[in-house]
């Protein structure tokens, strides 16, 4: 199985967590590696913006001498967007349903991020 297909499997695993509506893996500099979007918009733009967001958050906290953020969580009325690093090269980002329980999603994402880091 190619790396790309294995990443697809990781995303498919995330998709089984009922509350995750879309998920994607990209490089830290915003290039798409794989996405499971269920036709919810353009994955290239989605990951480019997510990578910028995570990178900007890291710059902002390290500017104040704090450690890099573990994740960026964006809350909207329609759902939550969560973006976290997956090793030094990649990141994983998901969009959840509005009433999603954050705990379960974060546990699953952390697991996925560890897998991704080991795959690439």
């Amino acid at each position, binding site marked *: 199985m*190619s*790396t*790309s*297909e294995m990443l697809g499997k990781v995303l498919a695993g995330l998709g089984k967590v009922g509350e995750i509506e879309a998920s994607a893996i990209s*490089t*830290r*500099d*915003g*290039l798409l*590696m*794989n996405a499971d979007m269920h036709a919810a918009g*353009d994955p*290239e*733009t989605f990951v*480019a*913006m997510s*990578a*910028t*967001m995570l*990178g*900007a958050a890291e*710059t902002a906290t390290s500017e104040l001498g704090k450690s890099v953020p573990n994740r960026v969580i964006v809350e909207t009325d329609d759902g939550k967007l969560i973006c976290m690093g997956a090793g030094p*090269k*990649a990141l994983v980002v998901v969009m959840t349903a509005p009433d999603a329980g954050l705990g379960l999603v974060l546990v699953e994402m952390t697991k996925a991020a560890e897998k991704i880091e080991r795959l*690439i």
Partner: protein
Amino acid sequence: MIETGIPKLDGYLHGGVPEGRSLVYYTYPGVAGDVFGMQTICHATSNGRLGVYVASSTDPQMIRDQFSEFGWATENYDGRFIVVDAFSWLIGADSQERYVVSDPEDINSLTQCIKKVMEEMSEPGIIVFESLSTIMDLCGESETLDALEEWSQYAMLYDHALVYNFTAWPYSEETLLHVKENVCNSVISVGGITGDVVFGQYFGVLKVDWADLARKSTLFKVLKPGGIRAYIPKILVTGPFDAGKSTFVHALSNRAVSVDRLGTTIALDHGHVDRKGFAADIFGTPGQERFDPIVKLLSGEAMGIFLLLDSTNTADFERGKRMLEITKSFGLPVVIVANKQDLAEALTPEEIRRELDMPADVRIMPAVAATGEGVFEAFETLVERVMEVD
């Protein structure tokens, strides 16, 4: 010559496939290879050639639907698009096609039908096989290889070009090698790459016996509608504050989004371009120094760079050069865009070259991003340079 209609490929093949010759798209599993044959036949028939599509693994009506998903309306080709139905029998369905293979599991039956089509075609045309691998699965590997020779001879006799889609499933080493080296006059490999982290699909010429072999490979992407495009995953647009970077990205892109406040980009512009067989994703950076960390973050893995300059604002030229350093663009193809050429006090590209002290081989192109003037010329110049690097 019959053009393949695949961007870049006709250039590599010196115009396409000559009449009477054959070509195989040798695809590695997991890569979308079928589209190559589909695009080739549609390109040929829409240019007035006769095209025959040998359907071995899909129902003919579904095939027409698949074509139309890509925006290729086969019903508009006035009967120049012919389907040989080598599928319906397998599922026990009736066929509406003029040419039906009575037993697709018997290679002789297939050969008979293909010969009949070749004889009855009113002029030299192109015959595309949906899947040579399916034919091998149904009829056997050595039987199919033998038949290929017979088809090639016949095609030569009638001046038809033959094109096969072939997926390199785990057949015997011998068969794979034979397909890769002997069976056709030209072999195009279609595969996937796993670079450092970027994933892409490429095609390249492995063999061609009517032209010099160009050992180049081209990244591609399949668009629906649209088909195969030579693809550049990241082109960076950078430059000093207020040089017109966002305007440039929007003028260039079929669709684009920007993260800006009060007209200034604070995160990035992101756009898709799809033009003349080339597709690219465009990343526009902010220009103000306080956003330099974002510029660094975004510039990784770019394959080409536009440096936008406001031709009237010489004070910012140094900053422009500095931004090329920040983006670590050393060694990458760069096109400098001398923007705002419509303003009276704008410097000419040559004056800008002197101001910047740029060597003569760096292209500096005039443009007015606000009206779109010169934007596509700059794009085509950069794409040309990025593709050369392969």
